[in-house]
């Protein structure tokens, strides 16, 4: 997928002014966020399980070569064809060849962020002349608008019901013009009817995998709609496209992590469908795909092992970090400019496509820490973003004003007495000029004051308060 991450600032400005987007994002707090809070409260063991899950994934990554080998052996023994793809281009070519060998004209697809990462649809369409149909409802809504997902588990979260109705009327022209499309259920039904025909005629079904299980050589998909299951059980060939860090050792490790996944993602006790797939159709089976391929992508992930970014490989793609992020909540997912939005994207995107292209993303954080608080795998996202900020600074191509500002701050920060003196003089001065306790404009702070007032300092400096507190002075 092409990136516009370098345009983050202007992307964000456009998003802030987009009324439809702002209205759609308004659903986030009452929906996914409130549901997670409830689900977490209903499982007292949730916090303890986070620690266990973190250990499982750390252990897996530390032994990824061995688990990959065990997985591969067991998957092959069950009849899977296992493909290794170092790059996105490799993965695209492998899947195109599988589709060609299957004489595929129609390919159905379940939801897969890795397939977005490698730009699969465009490749199969352009190079293979194949019709690729997204079957997850949200992905379908995005595909018919020629957009990309704006959220990793709710791809069409940026769209309002009215936009969906307009798209359906524009595209589904074989249906009566005067049909009623007022309720979400009517829209869902219309899509169901259209996609049913695709499921029944597809030659190849492509899904992602939430996990690969070494012990059994299985892949698993976790869904609510059942589209992934129709995709993978009706076509003659099932292709799983996934990435190297999705491995877990055993079924017990899987169930422990699954206890966190749906609760963190949608706030469900569990997703409606969880499907373990191992090999293709068996000798006596009456249905299921005779061919089962698994494509395992690296695309730069191995490079993160042994670096300060290794923790990000624990990610199980639940989306909790973006659901709770004030920045994501204000601008939505498209502004981030690549596949993975929100805090996880701000860490992953520079790792996968470079800090030069995506250096803006780790800067788009208030460091409020909410993402790390809610991450089921306890990934220290703000710390990792800070590492990227350092890396970006070290690259040396930040604007001069930016560097001068940082250098100025650093000069004082390294000289505590001077910092103290400057604050002691500056703070009362600022509070003197701030009218009614706030600034509506301020030199060098236009980026802030263009959208809201900056509160004026109200009294003593932090260092003064801290010193008093240390001395046991109470107010």
């Amino acid at each position, binding site marked *: 997928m092409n990136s516009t991450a370098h345009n983050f600032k202007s992307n964000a400005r456009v998003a802030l002014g987009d009324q439809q987007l702002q209205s759609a994002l308004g659903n986030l707090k009452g929906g996914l966020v409130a549901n997670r809070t409830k689900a977490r409260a209903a499982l007292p063991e949730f916090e303890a399980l986070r620690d266990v899950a973190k250990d499982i994934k750390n252990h897996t990554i530390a032994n990824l070569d061995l688990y990959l080998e065990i997985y591969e052996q067991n998957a092959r023994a069950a009849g899977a064809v296992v493909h290794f793809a170092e790059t996105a281009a490799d993965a695209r070519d492998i899947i195109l060849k599988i589709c060609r060998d299957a004489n595929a004209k129609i390919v159905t697809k379940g939801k897969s962020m890795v397939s977005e990462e490698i730009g699969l649809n465009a490749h199969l369409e352009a190079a293979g002349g194949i019709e690729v149909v997204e079957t997850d409802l949200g992905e379908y809504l995005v595909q018919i608008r020629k957009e990309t997902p704006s959220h990793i588990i*709710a791809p069409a979260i940026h769209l309002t019901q009215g936009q969906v109705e307009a798209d359906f009327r524009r595209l589904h022209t074989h249906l009566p013009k005067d049909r009623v499309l007022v309720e979400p259920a009517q829209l869902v039904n219309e899509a169901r009817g259209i996609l049913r025909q695709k499921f029944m005629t597809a030659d190849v079904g492509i899904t992602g995998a939430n996990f690969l299980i070494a012990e059994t050589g299985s892949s698993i998909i976790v869904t609510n*709609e*059942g589209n992934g299951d129709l995709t993978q059980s009706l076509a003659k060939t099932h292709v799983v496209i996934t990435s190297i860090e999705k491995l877990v050792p055993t079924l*017990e*490790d899987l*169930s*422990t992590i699954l206890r966190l996944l749906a609760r963190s993602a949608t706030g469900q006790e569990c997703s409606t*469908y969880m499907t373990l797939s191992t*090999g293709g159709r068996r000798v006596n089976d009456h249905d*299921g795909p005779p061919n089962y391929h698994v494509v395992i992508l690296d695309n730069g992930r191995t490079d993160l092992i042994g670096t300060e970014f290794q923790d990000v490989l624990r990610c199980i793609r639940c989306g909790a970090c973006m659901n709770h992020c004030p920045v994501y909540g204000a601008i939505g997912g498209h502004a981030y400019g690549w596949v993975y939005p929100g805090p996880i994207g701000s860490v992953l995107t520079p790792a996968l496509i470079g800090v030069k292209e995506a250096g803006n993303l780790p800067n788009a954080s208030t460091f409020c820490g909410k993402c790390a608080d809610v991450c089921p795998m306890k990934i220290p996202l703000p710390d990792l973003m800070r590492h990227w900020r350092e890396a970006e600074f070290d690259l040396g191509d930040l604007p001069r004003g930016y560097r001068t500002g940082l250098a100025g701050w650093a000069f004082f920060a390294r000289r505590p007495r001077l910092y103290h003196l400057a604050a002691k003089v500056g703070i009362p001065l600022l509070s003197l000029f701030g009218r009614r306790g706030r600034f509506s404009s301020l030199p060098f702070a236009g980026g802030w004051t263009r959208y809201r007032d900056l509160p004026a300092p109200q009294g003593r400096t932090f260092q003064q308060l801290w010193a008093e507190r240390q001395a046991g002075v109470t107010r």
Partner: protein
Amino acid sequence: MSTRDHDNKAARAQMFAKLQRALKDGPAQSARRTHVEGRVADPPNHPLPERVRRSRNELRMQFKAFLEGQSASVLEVAGAGDVPAAIANWLRGHNLPLTVRMGDDAALAELPWSREPALLRENGPAKESDTTGLSHAFAGIAETGTLALTSGPDNPVTLNFVPENHVIVLADADLVGPYEEVWTRLRQRFGKGQMPRTVNFISGPSRTADIGGKLVTGAHGPRRLCVVLVSEPMT
């Protein structure tokens, strides 16, 4: 248009070499391998939620409550002899044709179908025109109100997703607390490390919230799910 041929063997070797470099693997390999292989052979017992350790009766109630909370119907019947009538009545109650599609499952085949002569049974994997699929669950999971089904000629996987209605028969003896008990039973039934083509966990009818964040049931899979829980052991 042609694409370059992908050399899977070379890519595999490259990826493993890169991983081993990143993991700084050297002489520790054999110790690591012993540990990892031991962990796979004898999986760890991670902590289980308190809610799976309740009494049999509480587990049953919890199982039912979770499923009903997800818009599924749960019918409790005393014995296998009551299953055909329960299914027929449920179909009648929803104005559905009295026809079910089922696989070769022996326990389902042996149900006293003659008691419901109006109820037709068709055998084989799902067809597009089928209205109701009938399956026999491998297990039920009280922890989340979930059915576990294993694919095969007995219970073809398409029955779970193609028809608009899905009826699943579960013997009470197969209702367990946590997922971990299903893993144990799978290993017993299919052999350690062996699995059927699919193990399907189902916790309600198909659903989506992709339009305006509003929950709608019947997205792509079944619009209705009915679980028949049979108290006495089935054959």
